[in-house]
């Protein structure tokens, strides 16, 4: 267990460093950045905002990480958010309880994921094309559900999910942390993670090794749909209304970016959900810098692009290799004669 923690820490070191730097940047533009107060029954502060506002991207990138690990991509998550929000809102507006609304929205999200999964795994349509279908059509479906309006609601239970707090902590933070840990635990405590990675690295070999790639592929798209639905409910609950036109708009790109910043390859294979979640927090921290800096909004995208490019350059193989060389030349290399495990077992 301690060893897994250590390797997880090693894997996420670049993301932790980048996050620290971006948070420091926040501190420089706004010295009060790290102060957290408890007022009006909730934690109040910029750090809390980063965690809270990062929730939709964080939730999306949990599912997206798994999808990308299989060498796929899910462009439909933004649209699925809109659908799920619309379903939840219309259910409570029709007088159902918030529990029904939540379950209904999540079920619809899973259904969307299932659709994507079947297109990819059974019909063998390229993921980018398969999920593009729902990306385009999904927002239309959401508009049909809300009839083109912002469907507002007052159900306190549902609102609690997006705008409420539990012991002073905004609910969305708890939701994404819980789901992130739960999914990480499931993929790493079972063999699911390894099998997903195997499919992403070499699907042909995996199939010949007896892995049921079809079922696993459907599974990851289903999880992605579930995550998107949860994000959609939170976003709708946050503004007490389902905005089919804008909910989750372009958020699929932020989710993909979070996965990439998390050091996961778009070519599939090895993945780390924790690193992706850190990626989501990095993106939200960048947004925070922009908002706190007080720069005119014309600079928003330029600043964001510059910071993101800097992050990606630092993570690029060339720069990484250079850093590795620098580190390696600083300390003599010990020939790896006996594997660690063997040594331990002989003691």
């Amino acid at each position, binding site marked *: 267990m301690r060893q897994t923690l250590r390797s997880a820490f090693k894997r996420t070191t670049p993301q932790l460093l980048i996050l620290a730097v971006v948070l420091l940047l926040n501190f420089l533009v706004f010295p009060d950045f790290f102060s957290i107060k408890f007022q009006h029954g909730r934690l109040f502060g910029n750090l809390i905002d980063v965690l809270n506002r990062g929730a939709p991207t964080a939730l999306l990138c949990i599912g997206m990480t798994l999808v990308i690990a299989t060498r796929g991509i899910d462009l439909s998550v933004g649209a699925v958010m809109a659908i799920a929000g619309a379903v939840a809102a219309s259910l409570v507006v029709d007088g159902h309880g918030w529990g029904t609304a939540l379950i209904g929205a999540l079920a619809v999200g899973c259904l969307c994921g299932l659709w994507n999964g079947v297109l990819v795994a059974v019909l063998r349509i390229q993921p980018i094309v398969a999920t593009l279908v729902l990306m385009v059509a999904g927002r239309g479906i959401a508009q049909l559900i809300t*009839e083109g309006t912002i469907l507002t609601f007052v159900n306190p239970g549902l609102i609690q999910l997006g705008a409420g707090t539990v012991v002073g902590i905004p609910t969305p933070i708890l939701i994404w942390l819980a789901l992130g840990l739960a999914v990480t635990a499931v993929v790493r405590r079972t063999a699911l993670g390894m099998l997903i990675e195997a499919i992403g690295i070499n699907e042909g070999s995996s199939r010949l090794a007896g892995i049921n790639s079809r079922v696993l592929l459907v599974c990851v798209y289903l999880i992605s749909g579930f995550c998107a639905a949860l994000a959609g409910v939170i976003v709708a609950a946050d503004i007490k209304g389902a*905005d089919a036109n804008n909910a989750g708009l372009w958020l699929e790109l932020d989710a993909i970016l979070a996965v990439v910043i998390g050091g996961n390859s778009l070519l599939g294979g090895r993945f780390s959900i924790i690193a992706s979640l850190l990626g989501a927090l990095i993106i939200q921290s960048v947004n925070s810098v922009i908002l706190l800096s007080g720069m005119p909004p014309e600079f928003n995208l330029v600043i964001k692009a510059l910071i993101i490019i800097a992050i990606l350059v630092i993570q690029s193989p060339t720069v990484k290799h250079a850093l590795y060389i620098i580190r390696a030349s600083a300390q003599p290399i010990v020939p790896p004669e006996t594997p660690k495990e063997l040594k331990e077992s002989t003691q």
Partner: protein
Amino acid sequence: MKLKALLIASVMALAPAASMAGNMTVGFSQIGSESGWRAAETTVTKQEAENRGINLKFADAQQKQENQIKAIRSFIAQGVDAILLAPVVATGWDEVLEEAKDAEIPVLLLDRTVDAPKDLYMTAVTSDLVHEGNVAGQWLVDAMNGKPCNIVELQGTTGSSPAIDRKKGFAEAIAGHDNLKIIRSQTGDFTRSQGKVVMESFLKAEDGGKNICALYAHNDDMAVGAIQAIKEAGLKPGEDIKIVAIDSVPDMHLAIAHGEANATIELTPNMAGPAFDALEAYLKDGTVPPKWIQTESRLYTAKDDNMAIYEKKKNLGY
């Protein structure tokens, strides 16, 4: 219909053939339904046509110019009496407008104008975005009455013409009033959720909101989102922070009725009414309307019966 007063009557030597408004057919090429306001515009246009006994042919272009051009061509082929066009972009209309002109079908532009020779369309019914910002600014000038006030501004989508013009109009109105100062201005992308997110950061950055006296939002949706952020920060929207925005969507009226917002300026979804008026006048006695019909930018405050407006507007499709 005060707008009729805006119409400048001029007598045409050439009187058109008598055409009864009662059995007139008009084609309407709508952009799509990208916003609540757009949906309301569609609803109101259909209502206006029905009230006047006009047979309206409606075509939704789903944000695509080629769909609009197709729709206009099919209207021409069907020989409609007039065409209403809410253009999705400003350029590229010359050819199809020529075709309409050749077929002697008048084209009336709704909500936006086009970059085409003025003789290719009869008139354009639009609001004046700068004027809207101006009204909002003037309201705040009057409400503050010389007291110092720090304003935060939620801009529309960066680079969009409503964002540019509404910012400009507001700035013009408060210019020269040294008590009013915009301390933070950031885009909220015209959406509720971004309005809330950006307001949250304004509140944090300005001493928990104690430093903010008023909010000006380029549309009501952002204001509605910001109201929630203000409430969550433990402040009273409408009292601790004055709120003025533009569009007059139902939820904003509800907020004003609850004392959580102070003023909104109407961007009327009824662009078709003045257009039909101009069309009927022209067909009746050849009155040529002006090239630009400006809709009224009406100010609503707590003095109005906001609940009644809310009830009336909520079924328009906002």
